[in-house]
């Protein structure tokens, strides 16, 4: 059973454009929502994370938007660059009560020069 659903599976964006990746979850007990970035041949690395007490978190060109009522969260990459080309995974867990991270299926982002 996929606890976190991610879309799209792949995304092609022009340099300077906005990349948007969406995730949805069912378990209302989830309280920690990280995004991971993975380059070919490397393990995933934490990019940015959010908790339900805020609706948006921004770090540089990366922004997470969180909608608790809709049980959705998304990653926006502003001014996308070719160096952003990677696979992105969303995840969720019950940080306060403890659970393992549940990952989405991943989105392969390609930013064309």
């Amino acid at each position: 059973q996929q606890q976190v659903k991610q879309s799209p599976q792949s995304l092609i964006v022009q340099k300077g454009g906005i990349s948007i990746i969406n995730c949805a979850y069912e378990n209302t007990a989830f309280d920690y929502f990280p995004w991971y970035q993975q380059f070919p041949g490397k393990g995933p690395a934490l990019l940015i994370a959010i908790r339900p007490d805020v609706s948006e978190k921004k770090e540089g060109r990366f922004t997470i938007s969180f909608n608790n009522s809709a049980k959705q969260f998304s990653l926006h990459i502003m001014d996308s660059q070719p160096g952003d080309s990677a696979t992105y995974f969303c995840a969720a867990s019950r940080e306060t009560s403890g659970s393992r991270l549940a990952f989405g299926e991943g989105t392969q982002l390609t930013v064309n020069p």
Partner: protein
Amino acid sequence: GAGVSQSPSNKVTEKGKDVELRCDPISGHTALYWYRQSLGQGLEFLIYFQGNSAPDKSGLPSDRFSAERTGGSVSTLTIQRTQQEDSAVYLCASSRTRGTEAFFGQGTRLTVV
């Protein structure tokens, strides 16, 4: 060490042979995960260790797969009687506590010929 260390980085084995993959988590991290990632695919959860609790083995695909974590630190994933469909990158991750940021190793690329 500075990060999660996995060995070997690459392993080629003959069908039917047993293999052992090793993971050295970050010192002090109580949670440890094993994931499998087939080419261009998402992260398939295999097993999760948290402190002294019984491991969550719900992701192991068959009884040919097993894992142990000795002394709450190093973990070994064993695949018996390997099959060609076992070919994948096996990723290990650790986190300070359950449900928090997971740090991934570089993975072990397993090829069964």
